[in-house]
């Protein structure tokens, strides 16, 4: 049994502490917006926030999370930057298959939390860990800039 703070709620999960947060979210809590892509922190599909910072949940064990606040794509829209990013995404239609986009949005929001007016180099540094096989990069870059202006 591990207790976690997820999207503002305390959740107790009947899983072993070595279970990655990704699978706790998906298989135990039904929060399937966080995606499995690689399992080795190379694609970013599983990105969530831990105390506002973007982390890869596929390699983060629930035993190591402790009391730190986890936010997932399902709730990031309740934060000002999350909402801005989601809107910017919709405005210029970033999404294609969409499978990577939860992670992209989480990383982009964390970027804005830290760097309200990111330049290209900031975007590269913050988003390079998020792969998009559909190739939505041109639009991701633009949407982040738009969100920063909003």
């Amino acid at each position, binding site marked *: 049994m591990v207790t976690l703070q997820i999207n503002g709620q305390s959740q107790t999960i009947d*899983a072993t502490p*070595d*279970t*990655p947060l990704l*699978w706790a979210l*998906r*298989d*135990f809590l*039904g*929060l*399937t*917006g*966080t*995606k*499995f*892509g*690689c*399992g*080795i922190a*190379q*694609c970013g*599909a599983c990105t969530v926030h831990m105390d506002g910072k973007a982390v890869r949940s596929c390699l983060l064990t629930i035993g190591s999370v402790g009391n730190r606040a986890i936010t*997932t*794509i*399902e709730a990031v*829209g309740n934060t000002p930057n999350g909402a801005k990013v*989601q809107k910017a*995404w*919709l405005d210029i*239609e970033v*999404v*294609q*298959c*969409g*499978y*990577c*986009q*939860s992670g992209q*949005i989480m990383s982009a929001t964390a970027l804005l939390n830290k760097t309200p007016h990111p330049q290209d180099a900031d*975007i*590269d*540094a913050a*988003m*390079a*860990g*998020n*792969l*998009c*096989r*559909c*190739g*939505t*990069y*041109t*639009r*991701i*870059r633009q949407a982040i800039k738009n969100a920063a202006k909003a």
Partner: protein
Amino acid sequence: MIQNISTRRTFLKGSAAATATLSGGLMIGFAIPAGAQQTPKPTPYVLKPNAFIHIDADGKVAFQIPQEEMGQGVYTSLSQLLADELDVAFDQVTPLPAPPDDMIYGSPQRHRQSTGGSTSIRNFYTALRQVGASGRAMMVEAAARQWGVKPETLRTENGMVIDDAHGGRKLSYGALAPAAAKLDAPQNPTLKTDAQLKYIGKPMHRLDSPSKVNGSAQYGIDVRMDGLKVATLAASPVVGGKVDHVDDSKLKAMPGVQLVVLDDIVAVVATNFWAAKKGLDVVKITWDGGPNGHLDSKTLMAELRATAAKKGVTAAESGDADKALGKPGGPTRLDATYQVPFLAHAPMEPQNFTVHVKKDGTCEMWGGSQVQTTAWRAAATVLNIPPEKVTFHNFMLGGGFGRRLDVDMVVKATRIAQKVDGPVKVIWTREEDMQQDMYRPAYRNVMAATLTKDGMIDGWMHRIAGASVSARMSGKPPKDGLDKGSVDAATDNYYNAPNFRVEYIQAEPRAVNVGFWRGVAPNNTIFAIESLMDELAKKAGRDPVAFRLAHLDKTPRLKNALQIAARNAKWGEKMGPRIGKGVCAQWAFGTYIATICEAEVDTNGEVHVRKVHSVIDAGRIVNPDTLMAQVQGGITFGLTAALWGNITVEKGRVQQANFNNYRLMRINEAPDIQVEIVKSTEAPGGIGEPGCTAGPPSLVNAIAAATGVRLRELPIDRALLAGKSSV
């Protein structure tokens, strides 16, 4: 506001089981099951608006989208076709995946449900407009009967039938639906004129985006239900191999897991993925690789080379190529061989399928497929039951790219599910996904061309050696030895060579399963053609763009696109050292596209793609924004392959496993990609693939411009480029 697409399950259950619950719906007559027609006859297309359109009493409209949504935007673009002609408000529309049914949802041309080859708009453009128009006519007819007026006196707007002659009285489609549903569908409805179109040709916002930015979109991997188990699997790493020995002593210590051992698959079933994965990790499996267990890439490529050296069967011919080409070594003759490797699809959503083999002899399955009916039949075949006993819930795909045109994942998941009590979701790890792919075949192109005195192409020979995906899928060799799928675009002779021959020779690799991959055959043939064009231009002492333009008089739409692209990309401007621009002009999938790529090569041979300009003439366009997105995505996909894509084999096993050794382009490696659309009223062309095929040749040509090094094999070889700078 668009309803969460995840409501589809309720809808489908409702539609199959209890239509009556959908009050006032236009869903009656919905033909489930109808896949009994195993071999669809080429019957004329019959309009069945009832099967496509469902309208609630409150006016909400749901469309059954026959094609699969995998990111290319068909939910939206096909909805645009329907909604425009039906004349309903676009924000009232919910797209839903159609169930498997070739006769109703297969394209009018092929009567087979399949999303691939950039065909959705090409095949459905007219048909779905007719369906929408037919539905609208039924609404008008129902209103006319109710009011006792002539239908011609009525008009429609945003889901309302309006009677201007009687003070503008209105009836909503929702109110009319029950009556309309009982009418016969008109088979030749009048379509809107171009001026009347409200959605077609407009950059409508995607209907699937809202759910994809808030995490509520449901992919196959997201399926959840009571009692669901999760499994992960290891299939024989060698094609044709078998399980030799399984040591599960450590697994026994883990509670609540089930081991499934089949001929060529070992799986562990648990209550969640992590438990299953941990379980499989401790199972020691020894594989018997069988006859392929010793093969490696070196051998496979040597075999391909040997086959490519032989004469193939003729796929297209005009003039006298042999005479025009003369002997090798002739002063105006250029011989070149281009080769591309095996490639994995690597969609972001790893393969998965959820299957419930029930005690009553039926089966229910959930997952995403590009071939709904084939997937559905595949499960039935495994279980040896009629397909009608299988219910298939199709989901959006986290990337298709051709991977999900195959149904091996359905077969494997169903075989595992047979051993499991209750529903089981089988999830491939990324490693398993990558090592058990159906790979884009390696191809070798043997080419020769000659020039006339004035530097125009005279003779042209293009021999393509490679595997036939259709043959692998069907188990039958290609008719007369010619795999049409392998020579696509090569046979079109869009540069109008007067003496022209294209050959194909089948070269099936051992130990590698081949499949369709984004861009399909043209991502090989266009690479070869456009590389050779650059080499010929050089031989002729001409600028690559000018040389192409000189050959495009008979292909004016491509000529036009290329001229615009050259202008947009400032072709001919002076550039810094080690920077070059490369061009690709192509006609494939019914679309003309000209692309100019700018690349820089550093002293280590590392290639940095700086910018890409693409100009596309795809005829009539349904959604220009989607088109641009598809071209941007396609180019990225193609560039990724050109830079890094390479699947290699050792001891019969694929060596790449995850993104650490099968690289995908990242945002900090991605160029800015600008796309311009040429307005056209020609028939619509495909847009999913063309960008992909444009990437590699334009990049390789840019590298040649930057370094003087002509790369004839992909992926690009950095060692060859190290230290080289432009000539």
